[in-house]
Each structure stands twice: as structure tokens, then as C-alpha cells.
């Protein structure tokens, strides 16, 4: 079965810097990959989706890349702010039906002022 690895459990960076989070998967390349934000005690919130035929996707200060050769997605937050502090989850579909979205364990990002 598909496994998702988010390499860093926690990442601390200075405000204003770019945060880069990594997501690797182990088996077949999914048709698409998603990134979510989760705050403590709250449900995940969808941020971005990137399809396998897209190399890069941007939304405001967020950028996602998808490299099917490396089986990896990178998630960047530029000009980071303390309000960006949260856990970021990588998610992808498992199986052919696209009705099972599975999550990585997440990276807890802390932005210090």
C-alpha cells in the first residue's frame, strides 16, 4: 500500500524566511497530491492540489512542486509569518477509485518573530 513520509516532524524558522516542507511517497505516483493545514484541535484545511502532469502550482505565498521521478512534493511558504505556524499535511489518493485520501504524519512549522 502507499506510504507517505514527511521527513521533518518539526521545523522552526525565522519570520520572513522561506519554509520548505518535504513529502515523499513510496509506491506508484498518484494522479494528484494535496497539501492541508491543521491547527491544534481543528480539522485539516485544504490549501493546494497539484496534478501529476503539473510541475509547479502557486497560490499567493504558497508554492508546491511535484516530481514523479523522485516521488516527492515540496511545499514552500515564502515571506513566512508567525500566523503560518501550524502543522502541514501532505495527502494523496490511494487506489484506483480516488475515493480514499490518505495523509502523512505532518510537519509542525513554527515561525518565530
Amino acid at each position, binding site marked *: 500500500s502507499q506510504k507517505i513520509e514527511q521527513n521533518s516532524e518539526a521545523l522552526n524558522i525565522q519570520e520572513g524566511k522561506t519554509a520548505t516542507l518535504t513529502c515523499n511517497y513510496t509506491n506508484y505516483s498518484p*494522479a*494528484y497530491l*494535496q497539501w*492541508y493545514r*491543521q491547527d491544534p*484541535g*481543528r*480539522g*485539516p*484545511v*485544504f490549501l493546494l*492540489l497539484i*496534478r501529476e502532469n503539473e510541475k509547479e502550482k502557486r497560490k499567493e505565498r504558497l508554492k508546491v512542486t511535484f516530481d514523479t521521478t523522485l516521488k516527492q512534493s515540496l511545499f514552500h511558504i515564502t515571506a513566512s509569518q508567525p500566523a503560518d505556524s501550524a502543522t502541514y*499535511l501532505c*495527502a494523496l*489518493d*490511494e*487506489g484506483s*477509485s*480516488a*475515493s*480514499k*485520501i*490518505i*495523509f*502523512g*504524519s*505532518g510537519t509542525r512549522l513554527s515561525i518565530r518573530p
Partner: protein
Amino acid sequence: EPEVTQTPSHQVTQMGQEVILRCVPISNHLYFYWYRQILGQKVEFLVSFYNNEISEKSEIFDDQFSVERPDGSNFTLKIRSTKLEDSAMYFCASSEFIGSGSLRGYFGPGTRLTVT
């Protein structure tokens, strides 16, 4: 923006009791899901539901669990005989199908289930 709602926000129950967790998905969505998150652990898939039947379920979703869409708006998760290890946050989600098999998940605020 439309939201997924869940009730109750917190449920405390005794081991062996039945619980029903309720969700109202976004009205024009077609796929519905239940996930759980044990404190400090990752969000785990339980079950997906489409066209009034289960599409996928995980190993966690055993005979003690069932889902139902009793009317056009509610989506429920029932645990027949709760165990201590069922204590977790349970999230309901719904998805719109946005083409090419892509599903964007909208999650509810969760129900914290505590089994004593």
C-alpha cells in the same frame, strides 16, 4: 463559504456503549468520509461513502463501525460497542469531484470522543 458541520463537539461515553457521531456535509458534494486522529498521531482514513454505499474502508473500520446517510443531509458514524482505544478526534469530510479523479476535501471541526 459552505462548511461541514459535526455534532456533538465532545462526546464522553463508557466502554461498551454505542455512540453515533453526526455530520452534515456540504450540500452539493458527492463523496463523504470519516477520519480519526488519536491525540498526537496522524489523521487516519476510516471510510469513504459514495452513491449511498461504502466505496473504501480501512482495516480500522471493522464490524463495530457503520455509516449511514439516513436522509439527504446527514451522514453518521456509529460505533456499536466502544473501546478505550476508540478515544480520538473524529473528522467528517466531504468532497466535490473536480475532474480527472481529483477530490478536494472539506473537513468538519471534529467530534472529540472520550471513552472511559
